[in-house]
């Protein structure tokens, strides 16, 4: 029982990180119908931005722990938002009218660019992500424990998701974004500044990925320039699982994925953990291509 509880806690923590990344995928797909393959690298950039913010703050100020962690989080979100903005502006925007496969290849090019650029700037060898909070462990009963980092992950993820939910469903921007995801052309006809909304969508999606990068660094304190590859792909699977383009779906899909990964790693074998995400992907697409919460599109003649 304690073991199951432990796996559940770990799975939910992993799933929350995936969820933050998956939200970016699903938002960009919603407005542009584009699978932003550079998103995993934006996540990586966030982790490094957090690392460097931490180093800078530590060497210049004696900030208390909570201000420090807040600064790291904000620094990471800012850093990856800038990266996302640059990619959108210089790589995706010139291609808005081209076939989708071209945009996809550009996305892959951007992803490679960030990976190799990261290796050039940060160095190819892994770096240790600092312990921002002193780690304390709490007993949950039955031998299961939850540590302060996991609690931090839950809190940050929930707060950010609540903010996103408010932004998308309660503000003018959110309404415009949802209109664009229905039809880009119509939205521009009725006077929505499409480019601006897409830009803001990229900023929000990227900053969520940046926050996820910091949380990932806190949970698995070893970061390197190619760390974004697998979490990026898995978050993408999570977005598809929940129904790509659907924000609640992305969170549900990510939690399911995080839980099932930890269960498989815990009870079966950890080597099959990476395959599981793709098996889920194939099964979902075969049985219910629109995902758990997605809507079906009917092709008309």
């Amino acid at each position, binding site marked *: 029982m304690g073991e199951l509880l432990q796996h559940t806690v770990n799975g939910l923590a992993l799933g929350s990180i995936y969820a933050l990344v998956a939200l970016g995928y699903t938002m960009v797909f919603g407005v542009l119908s584009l699978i932003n393959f550079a998103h995993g690298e934006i996540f990586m950039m966030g982790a490094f931005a957090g690392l460097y913010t931490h180093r800078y703050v530590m060497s210049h100020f004696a900030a208390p722990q909570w201000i420090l962690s807040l600064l790291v989080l904000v620094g990471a979100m800012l850093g990856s938002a800038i990266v996302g903005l640059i990619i959108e502006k210089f790589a995706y925007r010139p291609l808005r009218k081209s076939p989708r496969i071209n945009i996809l290849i*550009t996305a892959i090019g951007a992803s490679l660019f960030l990976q190799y650029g990261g290796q050039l700037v940060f160095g190819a060898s892994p770096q240790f992500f600092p312990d921002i909070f002193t780690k304390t462990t709490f007993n949950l009963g039955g031998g299961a424990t939850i540590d302060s980092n996991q609690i931090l992950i839950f809190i940050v993820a929930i707060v950010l998701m609540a903010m996103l939910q408010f932004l998308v469903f309660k503000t003018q921007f959110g309404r415009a974004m949802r209109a664009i995801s229905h039809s880009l052309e119509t939205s521009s006809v009725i006077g929505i500044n499409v480019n601006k909304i897409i830009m803001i969508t990229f900023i929000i999606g990227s900053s969520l990925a940046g926050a996820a990068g910091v949380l990932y660094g806190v949970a698995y304190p070893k970061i390197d320039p190619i760390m974004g590859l697998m979490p990026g792909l898995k978050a993408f699977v999570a977005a598809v699982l929940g129904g790509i383009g659907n924000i609640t779906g992305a969170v549900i899909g990510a939690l399911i994925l995080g839980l099932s990964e930890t269960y498989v790693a815990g009870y079966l074998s950890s080597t099959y953990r990476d395959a599981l995400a*793709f098996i889920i992907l194939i099964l979902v697409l075969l049985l219910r291509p629109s995902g758990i919460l997605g809507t079906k599109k009917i092709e008309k003649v």
Partner: protein
Amino acid sequence: MKKTAIVLLVFVILGLILNYILGGFSFNTLTLFFQKPDRFQSLLNPYYYSILILMGINIILSVSLCLINGLTGMFTMGHAGFMAIGAYCSASVVMFLFPNSNSFVQMSMGMLAAGLGAGFFGLILSFSVLRLSGDYLGMVTLGFGEIIRIAILNIDKVGGARGMTDVPQFVNLGGVFFWSLFTVLVIKHLRDSRYGRAMIAIKENEMAATFMGISSFQVKVKSFVLSSFFAGIAGSLFAHSQGYLSTQTFSFVKSFEVIAMNVLGGLGSISGSIIGAVVLTILPEGLRKVQDFIGVDIRMLIYALSIILIMILRPQGMMGTKEWKWLSSK
């Protein structure tokens, strides 16, 4: 069909002659195309030689992907998976079943296993996923390719994470170029046949093609299987020219690379696929010189940047849908 058969026969004979010129002919060992070393190897710098071999393999991959992505208009991202199946099938057949045979037997059995293995998986995959289309098909094939890679990673018999070492190397430049030309010609003739026109019809408008009496499912399965067959062949050539296999080579990045070749040259154009393969093989290697000159490790950075720039500046690819004369339909 008859015309294709004649062309292929002529081509095999031409290949024999070419091989004779390149490497000399030795019936007693029956190594035919596949003996190593050939005369090129003594003429060329080994580094250039290996680049040329990689170029040939990339041409096979790119042109075979052109059959699915360019001609039939399906979007797949799992080509590296089929290449991996081919490479590992071929290497295991040669190393475990025919360890002591001469290289002709090894080569033909390895190739056969590679092509059939990859084709078989292509058949299974296409039967299960072809009712999907568009991005979803791309995602499933991407997942499939990764599953294949992780499955191989977990088979200890073929080296697992350590990779497969000491794979017999008997593929030479003549062999690689023979196969790449063979692939190009087969796909060119397929495109000009009834099936090819059906494929293009499906690409242009699947529903209209179905109304014309084309079984879109059958045509799609055929193009999928043939394409994965050739990807398997490319994998086999890769295995027996490099001598070392690691699952890392066949990650989805490789699939993307092949797609990039396709799109760079011009989606739907066989000549374009060839150009794309040549350019994207030479580009990273050629940039090595630039890197030596500048002294900073910016080779792959420029490579990535040039992919983005080409997509922005010339989105239809280098050839568009045009073909070279010897590959055009007329």
